């Protein structure tokens, strides 16, 4: 199981700020995103958007890295930041 967190407008689309996602073994980010969206097309599109950044265990992942998600990970999906 992984803990998935949604921020900003992704939270509105997912209709929750976080949810547990059960799975075994290791998953590629693509496979993990499909599992998280589980048939919700709007959420699937938002998670795959180029502007959506991913953090694993509170570390932002560079886009060039092929991420692998493991059970126990905390995975955050983040739309473009708007601070200041």
């Amino acid at each position, binding site marked *: 199981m992984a803990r998935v967190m949604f921020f900003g407008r992704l939270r509105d689309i997912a209709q929750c700020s976080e949810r547990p996602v059960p799975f075994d073994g290791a998953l590629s980010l693509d496979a993990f995103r499909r599992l998280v969206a589980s048939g919700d097309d709007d959420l699937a599109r938002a998670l795959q958007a180029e502007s959506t950044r991913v953090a694993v265990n509170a570390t932002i992942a560079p886009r060039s890295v092929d991420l692998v998600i493991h059970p126990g990970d905390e995975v955050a999906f983040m739309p473009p*930041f708007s601070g200041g």
Partner: protein
Amino acid sequence: MSEPPATDERAVRIVCEAFDPEGEIAAFRAAHAHAGAIASFTGCVRGGETEALALEHYADLTHRTIAGFVHEARARFDLMGVCIIHRVGRMAPGEAIVLVACASAHRKDALAAVDCLMDRLKTDAPFWKREETGEERRWIEPRAEDVAAARRWNDPASEDGRS
């Protein structure tokens, strides 16, 4: 990102309540009495139609990310001190959202460091802003000019990690 030193961690405060930017600047100035230059920027909730601004963040990541910006600014500019206060939660027009203050021997380093840190805070720290106007709730996306402004400070070799 490697862990920033403790001095950079201490320069950063994330607050849930209203703060007094003028009082904070005065305290910062008193703490850097030998600095020749103190530059600061205070960002406030705009008035007009907006009734409130709500700011959320990724708490486990925010402080460390901003401390990394402070570390970067100290390496780039000749600074004697940095203070960053960033508010989160729901706030009213006129209230301060963010304060960045830098102390240095001469003005150019202090001014440029404030500019650089604000650009980073706008687009590279895990904050999300939402405007509330009547019944409407609208997430604010960074403007293209904010993104371009932040890119000015990038080391080309680390471009990928930031984009």
